[in-house]
């Protein structure tokens, strides 16, 4: 888990690189790096969960199969399902998937899902949308969000719901066929 943690620390360094007048380049790279820290944390765990350790290198190949957009959609669907269940509504998840998830979701898992969706959107804005200026407070908020998601993930990564999520991040598109 060294690489994701290093990315998270690097995000904080970038956010504070220029004490007096933070450069947009530093702030934008900090947001992007905070997202990638969480992204790599989750895909590393997911590959380790979904693939055997042998042959060497298989898990790295699995990691390359994760797609940002699909992961974001899967996180949203989990959260929306949790909210729907709390309201007594039907979820949009396939019945077979819904039946193996324990509701309500653990708040730590919810925090990770929300952070992933939010940080991915923030990364998109930081990398591609130059119409808005970033400020340090917002960037530090995003980094704190990522940091809290790291802590939350460590609490739930071995749970059955996390196992379903990690599968969903890679396969959910196929589950609706």
């Amino acid at each position, binding site marked *: 888990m060294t690489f994701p943690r290093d990315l998270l620390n690097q995000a904080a360094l970038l956010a504070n690189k220029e004490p007096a007048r933070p450069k947009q380049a530093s702030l934008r790279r900090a947001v992007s790096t905070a997202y990638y820290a969480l992204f790599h944390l989750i895909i590393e765990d997911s590959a380790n969960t979904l693939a055997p350790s042998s042959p060497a290198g298989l898990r790295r190949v699995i990691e390359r199969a994760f797609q940002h957009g699909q992961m974001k959609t899967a996180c949203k669907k989990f959260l929306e399902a949790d909210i729907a269940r709390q309201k007594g509504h039907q979820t949009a998840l396939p019945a077979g998937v819904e039946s193996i998830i324990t509701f309500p979701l653990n708040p730590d898992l919810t925090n990770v899902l929300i952070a992933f969706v939010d940080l991915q959107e923030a990364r*998109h804005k930081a990398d591609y949308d130059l119409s808005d200026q970033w400020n340090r407070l917002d960037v530090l908020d995003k980094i704190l969000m990522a940091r809290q998601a790291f802590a939350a993930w460590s609490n739930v990564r071995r749970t059955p719901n996390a196992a379903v999520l990690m599968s969903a991040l890679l396969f959910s598109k196929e589950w609706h066929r």
Partner: protein
Amino acid sequence: MKEPGLDTRHREKNGEISRKHGQTLVGTLRKHYGAAFAPHFKDTDTLSDVLGNPDEPSLTKLFKDRYAGGLVSKITKRVEFRFGEDSDGSPAVWITIVANADLHPPEAKIEALRRAAEALRTDVLNSENKRWPYVQIKTE
């Protein structure tokens, strides 16, 4: 002195308004905030309806009241929102907490805003709003 805003018995110990208050009637809220509160809603609509279809003055009032007397209320100027589509084309609402500029924000300030942002997001997620809420902070 009575705490401003929603009745004190409706508050959690940390000052947050719990999820069940989504059912609070707009008519009840108008007794606190005045007749102009959430002008596009009926007395019989709920707080959840307002959060699902917010107008900025009402959202700002609710937000500042929730944290009345605390750090978040002091550093928050207003709450803005805009509707649109996110990067993958899904309906979204961007909620912006406009705060006082601070180049070197202390950790307590960042953490307080973080908690406030998540509470706001949770309210919107649990409302009838169908747009995904993204919360951001602007400074001025």
